[in-house]
């Protein structure tokens, strides 16, 4: 009894586990139960039960309610779909002036709005694309085809690659100095020589539109949330869900609203990229010391001056980290939105992956990573750069970069002109290296893949088989063996023990949503894959992080590695694993592990670093050994921060599991992917996305509540 009193929490947890397992054993697997493959829910089968809600018929395989809850929310996707269609096609028809036909036409309001929006996006993308690659649609938009026919000189070619490469080097030099400039020049030259110029510039033009727009909206909404509690409260739940929502899932509803193409991709990217920007803006503005605000007020600032000259510049670092995040999301989306017809490197990457041409995929992936790293480093350099003082410089010194760019511009045009004379019959390599004329390394990489397969096939296969048969399948079976009611009890119980009744209610609601959707089994598979990935990632990240923390150089090195890895668009991770493991669950899991190890490692190092130096010294003076210090002082104090890393690890793992559907998994991601090609997929896609987001949010809620309590307990903030 005394032990019970001493560790009440421990016994509560034990009791919860006992109840959980008792339920698991008490509730038998129904004989008719099997994991449903394919979209069997939508195929009529005499064994199915059905109910009608809101005029929608939902069919499902009925089991004992303790085993699996009936999909009472099965009508939701169909309802979302119908509502969307109604909104787009029938709601509020209005008269709109049509430029082309010169007459008024009746169109539903939402359709008109989305069409105008997409037209605007298309215009912006085309504009930048034409500067980089040439074309005349923008000019036509302002004038007419007749005008172009009459004035052929207006048809400008794009900028020669030499100018773009040198120009980015100059910009990089201005922002980050010599190293960055050399990197910019080399990567741009690489892209050109290896024949990836056109798709790269298409991707770049997409990002140059999506990133600034996301930045403006994110900043604006962040400021609005900072100024008004009400706006913040309204935004908060959306931000929360968007943070854990897989990017895939947003694609489908956007497809319905905005159609297919680059413009839709830009809008989706904004939907995904704006939330982190809002959060970081808010964070930065909150961190501005009150006295600085007062100093601004006492200097006689009005509200606008206070925001633009005091608050935003002072919060500049956080805001620019937000810009950095926006750029990263944009690159990630540049690949994913290829699913809905965005052009560029992402499209080539997906195509190559589809054809299992690993070499081509690797080339495209490398290019996109090169540009991503370049823009990432540039935006970070911008964030850390201090404004130069120009007071005592003369005209030439002040404008040397612009002047230099002018020289480059003229030289580049001249070069391209000479090129057109020199390469009279063939391609003008000084203007643009065409896609199929560049040096291609695809063959080399493909041979390499073949070689790896030939040489290590036996080992890889053996490892693969062992992992799947002895680890993954049993684990998956265990997860699927959980009766729904037992899972619910476990999750809600954990919520209660960690955060009291409030937490219990929140996680109960989230879990019930998933349990009542038609995809509980799938959600279990997603969770199992994510769990496996997270466990391995944490083990690796924790160990590596702790080891690297011991030495200043290795610590810095590791954080840099994490930075660079985080820059890669998530899809790029699939390339090397497919190279090694082919199309199996193993590939997906390895990708998940690699991807999710990044936050695990980073947060371990940062957590350990956040332990106050004074404590470190105090411990050393008490005569502890290195190990004692690590286990008695550093781990307990760094643990809350490390748990936040776990939170990130889970989100990263879930993202990658869902993306893994591209390789072929049997989880929620598979259905999301299917919904993409389904005319009626919007509702399903969105509901599935919410399910995945809720899985993330359940863990997020539990971990955050625990961390907050723990931090209060330890008195650290």
């Amino acid at each position, binding site marked *: 009894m005394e032990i019970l009193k001493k560790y009440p929490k421990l016994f509560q947890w034990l009791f919860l586990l006992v109840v959980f397992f008792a339920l698991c054993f008490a509730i038998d697997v129904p004989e008719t139960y099997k994991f449903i493959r394919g979209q069997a829910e939508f195929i009529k089968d005499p064994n199915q039960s059905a109910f009608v809600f809101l005029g929608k018929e939902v069919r499902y395989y009925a089991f004992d309610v303790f085993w699996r809850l009936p999909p009472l929310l099965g009508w939701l996707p169909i309802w979302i779909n119908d509502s969307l269609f109604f909104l787009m096609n029938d709601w509020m028809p209005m008269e709109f002036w049509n430029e082309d036909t010169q007459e008024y036409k009746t169109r539903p309001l939402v359709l008109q709005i989305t069409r105008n929006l997409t037209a605007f996006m298309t215009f912006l993308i085309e504009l930048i694309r034409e500067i980089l690659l040439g074309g005349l649609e923008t000019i036509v938009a302002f004038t007419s085809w007749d005008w172009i026919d009459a004035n052929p000189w207006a048809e400008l070619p794009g900028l020669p690659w030499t100018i773009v490469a040198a120009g980015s080097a100059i910009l990089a030099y201005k922002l980050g100095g010599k190293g960055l400039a050399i990197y910019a020049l080399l990567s741009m030259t690489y892209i050109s020589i290896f024949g990836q110029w056109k798709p790269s510039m298409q991707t770049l033009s997409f990002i140059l539109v999506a990133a600034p727009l996301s930045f403006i909206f994110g900043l604006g909404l962040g400021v609005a949330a900072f100024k008004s509690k009400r706006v913040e409260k309204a935004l908060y739940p959306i931000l929360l869900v968007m943070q854990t929502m897989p990017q895939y899932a947003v694609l489908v509803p956007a497809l319905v609203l905005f159609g297919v193409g680059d413009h839709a991709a830009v809008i989706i990217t904004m939907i995904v990229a704006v939330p982190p920007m809002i959060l970081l803006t808010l964070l930065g503005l909150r961190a501005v010391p009150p006295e600085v605000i*007062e100093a601004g007020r006492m200097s006689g600032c009005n509200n606008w001056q206070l925001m633009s000259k005091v608050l935003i510049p002072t919060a500049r670092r956080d805001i620019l980290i937000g810009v950095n995040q926006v750029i990263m999301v944009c690159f990630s989306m540049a690949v994913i939105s290829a699913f809905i017809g965005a052009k560029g490197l992402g499209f080539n990457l997906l195509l190559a992956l589809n054809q299992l041409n690993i070499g081509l995929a690797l080339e495209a992936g490398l290019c996109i990573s090169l540009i991503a790293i370049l823009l990432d480093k540039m935006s970070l350099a911008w964030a850390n750069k201090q404004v130069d003082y120009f007071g005592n410089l003369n005209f030439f010194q002040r404008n040397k970069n612009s002047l230099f760019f002018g020289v480059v511009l003229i030289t580049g045009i001249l070069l391209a002109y000479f090129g057109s004379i020199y390469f009279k019959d063939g391609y003008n390599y000084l203007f643009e290296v065409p896609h199929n004329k560049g040096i291609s390394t695809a063959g080399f990489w493909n041979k390499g893949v073949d070689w790896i397969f030939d040489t290590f096939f036996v080992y890889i296969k053996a490892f693969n088989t062992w992992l799947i048969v002895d680890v993954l399948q049993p684990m998956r079976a265990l997860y699927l063996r959980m009766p729904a009611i037992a899972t619910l009890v476990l999750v809600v119980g954990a919520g209660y023990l960690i955060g009291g009744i409030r937490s219990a209610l929140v996680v109960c609601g989230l879990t019930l949503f998933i349990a009542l959707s038609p995809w509980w089994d799938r959600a279990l598979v997603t969770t199992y894959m994510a769990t496996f990935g997270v466990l391995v990632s944490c083990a690796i990240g924790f160990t590596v992080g702790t080891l690297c923390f011991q030495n200043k150089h290795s610590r810095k090195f590791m954080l840099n590695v994490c930075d660079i890895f985080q820059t890669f668009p998530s899809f790029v991770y699939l390339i090397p694993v497919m190279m090694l493991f082919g199309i199996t669950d193993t590939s997906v899991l390895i990708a998940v592990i690699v991807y999710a190890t990044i936050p695990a490692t980073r947060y371990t190092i940062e957590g350990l670093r956040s332990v106050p130096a004074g404590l470190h010294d105090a411990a050393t003076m008490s005569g502890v050994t290195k190990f004692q210090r690590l286990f008695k002082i550093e781990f307990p104090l760094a643990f809350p921060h490390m748990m936040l890393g776990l939170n990130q690890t889970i989100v990263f793992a879930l993202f990658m599991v869902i993306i893994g559907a591209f390789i072929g998994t049997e989880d929620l991601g598979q259905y999301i992917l299917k919904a993409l090609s389904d005319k009626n997929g919007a509702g399903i896609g969105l509901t599935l996305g919410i399910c995945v987001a809720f899985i993330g949010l359940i863990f997020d809620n539990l971990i955050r509540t625990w961390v907050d309590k723990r931090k209060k307990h330890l008195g650290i903030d």
Partner: protein
Amino acid sequence: MSEPVIKCQSVYKIFGANAERMLKEANGNVDAKTFQDNGCIVGVNNASFEVSKGEMLVVMGLSGSGKSTLLRCISRLTDATGGKIFIEGQDLLNLNNKELIDLRRNKMGMVFQSFALLPHKTVLENIAFPLQIKGIKTEDSINKAMDMVKLVGLDGRENYFPRELSGGQQQRVGIARSLAVEPDIWFLDEPFSALDPLIRKEMQDEFLRLQEKLQKTIMFITHDFDEALKLADRIAIMKDGIIEQLDTPANIVLKPATEYVRKFTEEVPREKVLLIQDVMDEKTSSDIGDLKVSKDEIIENVAEKILTQEKTVAVTDSKNNVVGSINPAKIINTVFGGRKNNN
């Protein structure tokens, strides 16, 4: 006498949801305890005082005494819950936003405890900031800011960023910034509290030098009693939002109004605070020696001279007229006597 520059009439600042209603109901009789039970915190409780032109009022109090809140009411960084505040006759609480901004742009300057410099601007740009906000041309504002840089002795560092400066230097920038628009009223909120003792002393001397030159109307907030004694024309001592005593340093030391004030004065070395005129006899006795001391001298500086005399010493004013006398016993009594025994 001309109108006071700052005039406060029973100013209240109460934080909390029902502050205004509760203040009305209290009918001028605010009790912190009752308010606290109803979820309100009393920041400033019935503050009334005047500051005349060129005077330096130091508000002294420990943390939580409401001294910073009082200052923020007068600069209207927060709105007072009740009472009236007049700045050069203008009713501060009735100004609209535009008039308030105008007032701040032209009449007020403020220095902050944590310096509150803009991290992304250089020293020069920080100082020029209030001028540029006002809409003055870049060149003129930079020239003016340069004058300020020289005034606070930061020449050569005008292109540094705040993070590259020491605390004392940063506060010099803060002072220069607050003076850039040539305000009549100067608010200083614990300007030297975040500095090391040595630097603090140096800055105090510097501050006195500046004030001698500029003759601003000043409200100076501090938690340091010694600092208050050193700088102030008059001191207001605050506790729990109430001004316990408002008087000249000498009167506060010699005649503390409440027990709370007396505790502060106990440890004060009187010879360093009091002037000869504070302790001299008004009447001149016939038995006066040859030594003459000025009435404006601090006791410490002349004590040794006086104590070597056997006769009473004559006290003179600035025109060298004899206005009083002081005998050595009085000095001994002031310095050593009567502290604990007076209880």
